[in-house]
């Protein structure tokens, strides 16, 4: 992909996020839920990177950690080559302007008693010195940009449908011309016909404003449509990273293979060979030894139980964590 030569916008180095489990009489820390375990990723300007995985794989926590909504346990997050943790609060505020998030449920992230116009205006009040008239002008432009109308300015969140609310969420995210937008299951709650509209809107905005997206989703179909590269996570660990084309055509990790073959295809005769995974996702508070996937992996051996596979570049720009990549098994 050509995107590789572009400058790096976001760089993660060994990011970890543990949530302590407290218990007992003195509320001592008894263990950790290892939500994100050692994630390294580089996101380049102008690309869309998808983060996929099943529930509990740490994809949402990763997004929140990048934005600073969760305190990082270990590792480094570089944004525009600056270490985000080493910044003063003033510098941090400046950076926040450039990173925005679109949440799954826009209704939960809007104040029900605040008019949409005022909710959108807030960003300009905090980050710019625009006059009142100019702010209103910008908000109206934003509303039109996302396919809403000027008269929606004075309405309350409950007066909108789910799709319209998500458009408001998008308007709020693009208000300050950010460079990075993190979408956490941004279209998952929408009906398919509306989902398609919102996806098209987001794709259009990407081209218009040279946005970079980190697109967190469990829907592999949507991710293929939307993203240039895809990161697959399992139980807090990165499992595979490749361009969409490579990942979907030639998945290397057994988990990615199983995930892709589990998705029901909406057409006739699309049922190729199935890989059925047995069992369930283990508890992240008590992850299995060795490779986190060995309990469900169809090709797991003793080696997988004992040692954790390294994150290595199996093919050009195709990273995978599995002991048996490229080795024939019988």
């Amino acid at each position: 992909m050509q995107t590789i030569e572009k400058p790096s916008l976001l760089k993660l180095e060994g990011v970890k996020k543990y949530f302590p489990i407290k218990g007992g009489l003195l509320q001592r820390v008894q263990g950790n839920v290892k939500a994100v375990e050692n994630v390294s990723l580089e996101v380049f300007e102008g690309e869309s990177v998808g983060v996929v995985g099943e529930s509990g794989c740490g994809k949402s926590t990763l997004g929140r950690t990048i934005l600073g909504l969760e305190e990082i346990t270990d590792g480094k997050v570089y944004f525009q080559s600056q270490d985000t943790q080493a910044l003063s609060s003033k510098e941090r505020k400046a950076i926040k302007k450039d990173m925005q998030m679109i949440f799954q449920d826009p209704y939960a992230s809007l104040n029900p008693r605040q008019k949409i116009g005022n909710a959108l205006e807030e960003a300009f009040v905090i980050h710019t010195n625009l006059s009142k008239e100019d702010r209103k002008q910008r908000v109206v432009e934003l509303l039109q940009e996302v396919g809403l109308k000027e008269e929606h300015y004075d309405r309350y969140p409950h007066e909108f449908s789910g799709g319209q609310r998500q458009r408001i969420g998008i308007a709020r995210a693009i208000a300050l011309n950010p460079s990075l937008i993190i979408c956490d299951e941004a279209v998952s709650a929408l009906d398919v016909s509306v989902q398609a509209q919102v996806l098209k809107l987001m794709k259009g905005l990407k081209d218009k404003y040279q946005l970079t997206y980190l697109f967190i989703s469990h829907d592999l179909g949507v991710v293929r449509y939307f993203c240039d590269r895809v990161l697959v996570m399992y139980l807090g660990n990165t499992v595979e990273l490749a361009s969409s084309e490579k990942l979907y055509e030639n998945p290397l990790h057994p988990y990615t293979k199983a995930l892709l073959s589990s998705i029901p295809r909406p057409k006739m005769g699309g049922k190729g060979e199935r890989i059925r995974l047995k069992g369930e996702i283990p508890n992240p508070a008590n992850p299995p030894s060795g490779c986190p996937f060995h309990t469900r992996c169809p090709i797991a051996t003793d080696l997988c139980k004992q040692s954790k596979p390294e994150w290595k570049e199996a093919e050009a720009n195709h990273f995978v964590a599995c002991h048996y990549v490229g080795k024939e098994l019988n």
Partner: protein
Amino acid sequence: MEKKLLSVKDLRTNFRTADGELSAVRGISFDLDKGETLCIVGESGCGKSITSLSLMGLLPSNGYISKESSINLNGTDLSKLPKERLRSIRGRDISMIFQEPMTALNPVLTIGYQLREPLMLHQHLLKQKAHAKGIELLTQVGIPYPEKRMKQYPHELSGGMRQRVMIAIALSCRPQLLIADEPTTALDVTIQAQILDLMDDLKNQLGMGVIMVTHDMGVVAEIADRVMVMYAGEKVEEGDVESIFTNPQHPYTRGLLNSVPDIDDPSFELEAIPGSLPNLNEEISGCRFHPRCPFATDRCKADSPKEYELHSAHRVKCWLQEEVEIHADDRETIPS
């Protein structure tokens, strides 16, 4: 042996609300054979869940089925039965799997208690026998350590396990009709695949009819024999699964198929359906889809379309079929 299991005629379900009468289901008819899987698809608010609740007789207290409707299960009209009779049929002849097993299972009762209940009520088994049968059922739905699970509470199980328990309870009395309302929507894809396989196996073993309510066209292609597409309380298209996917006729069905990204084809272009779903109480003249339909004509705005039959297993409610009938040999002429 009679093949037909269920026959629904002109089902209309209304709700009395503070804003007046609300029609959620506006006269739909369909049949179901024994051992057949019918999928009802549509987006939220199209009336698919209300249809399944109407069949079960589980409508909220302000909802009612209008008098001209009939729901015929093996010769008994369920819509006319008194509550007591319906209660003895529900759980025995028809049972239901809900979307969210955590809300459908009682959190303060053990799995064992909830599994024994229908067996003791409907089959009059003694507690010990029901317990043994419960363990057998849990084994059948693929739950490891069934003896241990019988003593556990719903919160101790994972989402996939809970859904398996729901299925075990629903199947405990070997119903003839199973209604599944979005049974896999809350589950992860690898677990969803397991549950769909399980349901298919059990359907074949028990020979029951299945009505599956879903919005996921992928799930439909996987398990349906026949498909019914609903929009805003009406049936817009019905046909065998092959015909619906390879030759969809109604603009809404096509829109639905084109708004899901194709995972195997990167060059696939999404075609969104413009606008949004109408409210239930919105009065729309003519065809209820016309405000969002790219092919709508003046006729669509004025008159509700009649049902056209493509072939015996494929019916569609759309005026566009009129043009098709003129060039009956040349179906490609429909604008696409």
